[in-house]
């Protein structure tokens, strides 16, 4: 009741606001950013593999290779960061009770993320995507949302776990 009263007073007194400044607003969690980053890693590995087909690399090719490797590094770090934030901030005891293997899965994502940085072979990227998809399915299930798997409509056109959300009536 006190809070409602203050909320009304705020409308005309305009109390000063202070930000607690979390990285993202509380309660917005979505594994899609980690999934897109994992897809990007596979795409970057494919582009690196295309360069590998050449007999020799021109200077421009080498510059391109440097960019591809750098972006792969950045996106693997992003996968790890996005998963870490959901695991560290969203997952609480009820979620761990529902999925006792959550910690093990997150740790394996960390390891696969590192492997995707260190290597250029596609298997590492595919393994990371599979683990991140498993994490995404786990996450949506903890929210009572069913999931389905579909190939993403852009390269590398790999299977991605999507939440089955109820459409808003037009």
């Amino acid at each position: 009741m006190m809070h409602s009263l203050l909320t009304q007073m705020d409308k005309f007194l305009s109390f000063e606001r202070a930000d607690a400044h979390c990285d993202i607003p509380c309660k917005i969690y979505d594994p899609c950013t980690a999934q897109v980053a994992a897809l990007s890693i596979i795409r970057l590995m494919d582009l690196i593999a295309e360069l590998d087909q050449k007999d020799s690399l021109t200077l421009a090719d080498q510059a391109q290779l440097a960019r591809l490797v750098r972006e792969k590094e950045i996106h693997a770090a992003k996968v790890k960061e996005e998963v870490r934030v959901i695991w560290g901030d969203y997952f609480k005891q009820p979620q761990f009770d529902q999925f006792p293997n959550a910690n093990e899965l997150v740790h394996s994502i960390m390891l696969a993320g590192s492997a995707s940085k260190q290597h250029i072979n596609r298997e590492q990227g595919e393994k990371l995507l599979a683990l991140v998809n498993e994490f995404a399915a786990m996450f949506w299930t903890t929210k009572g949302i069913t999931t389905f798997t579909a190939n993403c409509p852009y390269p590398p056109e790999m299977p991605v776990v999507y939440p089955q959300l109820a459409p808003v009536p037009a």
Partner: protein
Amino acid sequence: MAPHFLPDAFVISISRRLTRLKVGDVVVANHPRYKRIIKRIAAIDPQGRVQLSGDNPASTSQEKLGWLLPSQIIGRVIYQIKPTQP
């Protein structure tokens, strides 16, 4: 600052000039980059400069927040009025 301080909560703070600050206090501060923020005091150096940290692991890091001058601390939070549960 979740879960101790919740979004849309109201807080009452006492002016820095009227109170002593100590490690563990929650304060409202005027940060040069992040503007008006609410954080917990992690450390106070001998000159009275204050290092802040967020309670939540997703908070902006202590390194990014840096050290604040005493004059940049607005007040110490003494009470929170939490939003009612829906």
